[in-house]
């Protein structure tokens, strides 16, 4: 094919079209700043169930992208944070929340560390008290007293 002006024009138009296609794909991100802020805030609070130890914001798993898109759609409809979280919890369970709610199932998770701290503190207290009574009477023998005074000379 000769590089005639017409061919050049077609090639350039083709390139322009593909550029505009990219722009279309990126558009939803810019559509509404408030929605984006909400999506960002929520996606850092929600777990990616595929990778489990990443938030939806951090994850590149396909499901995380889909969920982000879903959250974006809900946010654009004007749903509150709580309504969106409730929607996802109804489908994926409490595990989808990075900060687990306090309920009977998670009570051990929430209270366990404090319980351990209390038990440890109590144990330490008891041990120190016992040690105090153990160390009170240890009088030196006459021989030891002489050794000490010799050393301190």
């Amino acid at each position: 094919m000769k590089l005639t002006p017409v061919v050049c024009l077609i090639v350039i138009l083709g390139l322009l079209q593909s550029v505009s296609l990219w722009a279309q794909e990126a558009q939803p991100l810019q559509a509404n700043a408030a929605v984006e802020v909400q999506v960002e805030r929520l996606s850092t609070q929600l777990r990616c169930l595929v990778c489990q130890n990443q938030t939806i914001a951090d994850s590149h798993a396909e499901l995380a992208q889909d969920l982000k898109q879903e959250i974006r759609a809900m946010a654009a409809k004007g749903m509150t944070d709580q309504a969106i979280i409730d929607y996802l919890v109804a489908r994926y369970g409490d595990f989808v929340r990075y900060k687990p709610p306090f309920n009977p199932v998670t009570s051990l998770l929430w209270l366990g560390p404090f319980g351990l701290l209390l038990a440890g503190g109590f144990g330490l207290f008891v041990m120190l008290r016992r040690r105090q009574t153990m160390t009170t009477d240890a009088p030196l023998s006459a021989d030891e007293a002489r050794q000490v005074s010799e050393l301190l000379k």
Partner: protein
Amino acid sequence: MKRGLIPFAIFLVVVGFLFKGLFLDPREVPSPLVGKPTPQFSLPRLDNPATIFSPKEMLGKVWLFNVWASWCGACRDEHPILVELAKTGFVPVIGMDYKDTRPEAQQWLDQGGNPYNLVAVDADGRVGIEYGVYGVPETYVIDKAGMIAYKQIGPVTYDALRDKIIPLVKRLQAQ
């Protein structure tokens, strides 16, 4: 002697928990959907895109709803088991082809056999989100009233069929 007893007891408790932990699967997240009605949807069928499938059509029957994809490795292990189950005609199995392309899905069924009464196509995964799908394959046991009775995360194995799914389906069918 007595002093060492308490740390040893704590050690045993920790070992107990860790040992139990060895047999837990962190991927098995309990589904909040168990005991709830099946999320409704209308999706085109794989064999005929003009025909729509909706779970309402299955009311009055106990059925399995199996989410699969041709790109999914674990589905390959599961597929022959489903084919075998389907041959017995014990329970209808509806498939949902999740985030897949039609030609690849069709090729998969042509090669491995088709255990499904019909397959609905969830090309963009939106219905998957309604069902809380996060790892394919997943299989739901749905009762006559359209309630989700059980969710199998990961492939359906012979053990899962024998110990959980078949007894449950029998019980639900008798209701």
